[in-house]
């Protein structure tokens, strides 16, 4: 009889599979999560018919914001609402009573966020190309940027979601606490508008948070390089984007570990 418990990583991967299976069975929530960015793209693409400078459609401009805010919705918003409910219903406490460590739980959530994000982005891009004339970048370097933005973005979003899940007092109230934060952040970060047309103070506030940098990073992927001139700094600032997102990722992991609560008490 061995007394060797499975590694945290093994259990984390098993939990990831379980989380995805559980998520897939909540059909309404799957459809909503996957279709919401496409619906928003359809609405904004139809409202703003004018093309921007250089023949860029608004749908093309807007895809960047949709992917960036998808990262925030799928990771931060989903987890900051889901985890307080799991805490309230006692499933976290039950997990705590098993040999599975918190890190396995975190790994499972990261896998859930990453996989649902990948599917969501793929669907958005396919719909964008077919229905809204979105052009995908041809430069491989842009796809490299795209990939690290998705990876670091979803990791940071996951970590911050777990950290913020300690804020709502109850599972039922979580959505009321989390949603306004996300919506305000989306407006400030230029997800729904051309960022540089926002008031200066809003731009400065937004620059403190990761969503602005994710959106700007995604613009560098989906817009012609001539658009870099219109950014606040006159360039895409890829290095700074990577730095800010990495700092938020580290802060998120630190806070998630420090503030994580299994129990309501």
């Amino acid at each position, binding site marked *: 009889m*061995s007394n060797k*418990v499975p590694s945290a990583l093994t*259990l984390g991967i*098993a939990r990831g599979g379980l989380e995805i299976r559980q998520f897939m*069975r909540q059909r309404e929530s799957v459809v909503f999560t996957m279709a919401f960015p496409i619906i928003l793209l359809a609405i904004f693409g139809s409202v703003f018919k004018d093309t921007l400078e250089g023949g860029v459609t608004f749908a093309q401009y807007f895809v960047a914001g949709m992917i960036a805010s998808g990262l925030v919705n799928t990771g931060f918003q989903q987890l900051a609402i889901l985890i307080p409910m799991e805490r309230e219903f006692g*499933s976290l406490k039950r997990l705590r*009573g*098993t*040999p599975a460590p918190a890190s396995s739980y975190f790994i499972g959530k990261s896998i859930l966020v990453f996989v649902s994000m990948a599917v969501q982005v793929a669907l958005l891009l396919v719909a964008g190309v077919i229905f809204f004339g979105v052009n995908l970048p041809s430069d491989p370097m842009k796809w490299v940027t795209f990939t690290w933005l998705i990876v670091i973005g979803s990791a940071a979003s996951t970590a911050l979601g777990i950290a913020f899940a300690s804020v709502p007092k109850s599972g039922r109230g979580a959505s009321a606490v989390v949603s306004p934060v996300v919506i305000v952040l989306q407006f400030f970060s230029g997800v729904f508008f051309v960022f540089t047309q926002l008031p200066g103070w809003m731009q400065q506030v937004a620059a403190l948070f990761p969503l602005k940098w994710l959106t700007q990073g995604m613009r560098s992927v989906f817009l012609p390089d001539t658009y870099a001139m219109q950014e606040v700094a006159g360039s895409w600032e890829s290095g700074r984007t990577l730095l800010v997102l990495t700092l938020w990722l580290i802060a998120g992991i630190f806070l998630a570990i420090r503030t994580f609560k299994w129990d309501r008490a």
Partner: protein
Amino acid sequence: MSGVIEVRNLKKSYGSLDAVAGIDLDIHQGEIFSLLGPNGAGKTTTVEILEGFRSRDGGQVSVLGVDPAVKGAAARHWRNRIGIVLQSTQDSGDLTVGETLSHFAKYYSNPRHPEEVAVAVGLEEKSKALVRTLSGGQRRRLDVALGIIGNPELLFLDEPTTGFDPEARRAFWGLIEALRQDGTTILLTTHYLDEAEALADRVAVINRGKIIETSTPTELGGRATALATVSWKSSNGVQSERTANPTEFVKSLSNAFQGEIPELIVKRPSLEDIYLEMIGGADE
């Protein structure tokens, strides 16, 4: 030492309230031990300290030879040897019974087979059913199944049969008996005195953060030697007499009636009578 749980002078307070005010406990290998007490007596706090869910303010605690305040890898090895059935767990229920059992089995080094556990708790027919479709009693049995899936040496059972109908409760007691046969040590907290009487080898009554008495269910509070009440029906209506020698008394009654005594009842105090007296007495 054969002590699965050893507690000395355990203390825990919340502000000015001494929830646990110096408790000693010794629970032995293979026994079913029941902790009884009213709400707010310190029962839950004590059990949660033993489960490693709460910190303590003072005293020594050893559970399977380990301090439950243990952290890190040692905590995982410790949790690998215990099973915990909490009072209520309501998750989304989007997994099947079989999936849930198989998944939890992965957490342990030496789990029981999920199908075997499903049979043990009487859920074998429900293996492919989503957890959300189970009745309250079936969900509770799943909770117990998850508590024993890791093949624990020690099982914590918190109010396991709340909301069960009498038949389901009997079936459940059979399951707990079977676990005892396998040598599992069980710490049971329950509000049902008949449950403690049916299952427990020993009981401890806790009130106001202290243990009033630890004994077997039949001997608690001097129950075995307590006065018996004999009641019967005479021409003047129902009569009753408290006596230390009920056999003698019944014999003399029988002589008086020249045979059958109408509506004869000989009653010893139930565990519940004794318990209520102890709790009431402690309230003075």
